[in-house]
């Protein structure tokens, strides 16, 4: 069964360092998303991406964050200068259709710990 894969599964970094989280969405999906979940809190929407551009983003997704689809398979989230409050589980998701018409498939997440 096709699945969304994420790397790394866990990354520890020092405050102020740049981090890149990688995702390989399901191959025939067209819409890509990043969500995060701070320990014990809700899953929060960060950004959606379609046709090589951001389609929607939340207030959380400020100038420290960027996304890219550098090739036909990878979808990355970059945090330019990490802060302690960026520590969370980051989930990548993909869908064939816009999220209101179809289902999201989530990866298993990348846990980011900022020290």
């Amino acid at each position: 069964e096709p699945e969304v894969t994420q790397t790394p599964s866990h990354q520890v970094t020092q405050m102020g360092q740049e981090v890149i989280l990688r995702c390989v969405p399901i191959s025939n999906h067209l819409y890509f998303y990043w969500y995060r979940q701070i320990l014990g809190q809700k899953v929060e929407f960060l950004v959606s991406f379609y046709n090589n551009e951001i389609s929607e983003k939340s207030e959380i997704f400020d100038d420290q964050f960027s996304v890219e689809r550098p090739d036909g398979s990878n979808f990355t989230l970059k945090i330019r200068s990490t802060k302690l409050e960026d520590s969370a589980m980051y989930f990548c998701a993909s869908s064939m259709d816009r999220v209101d018409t179809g289902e999201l498939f989530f990866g298993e997440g990348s846990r980011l710990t900022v020290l």
Partner: protein
Amino acid sequence: EDQVTQSPEALRLQEGESSSLNCSYTVSGLRGLFWYRQDPGKGPEFLFTLYSAGEEKEKERLKATLTKKESFLHITAPKPEDSATYLCAVQDYQFYFGTGTSLTVIP
């Protein structure tokens, strides 16, 4: 203001003891309501999408229903493998998750 509120926060059931989880929402232009299952350390796994009041969806021991202000996830004769956190999410222009209901089914 929270767009999605789930209750109870935690629920312990004996195997075979049916119950319901609640998701209430406040978004005015609902485009969809979604139920997900999340196991510890894993990403959410899609269960159902509901679009309009009165709609129902079923999958094995789970049935989801939708009214104008809330949704219920009914669990009939649960088994220990149904233990997980069940997340509700709604969409207007963005996608909002609730905090989930942690379900434990005791053999």
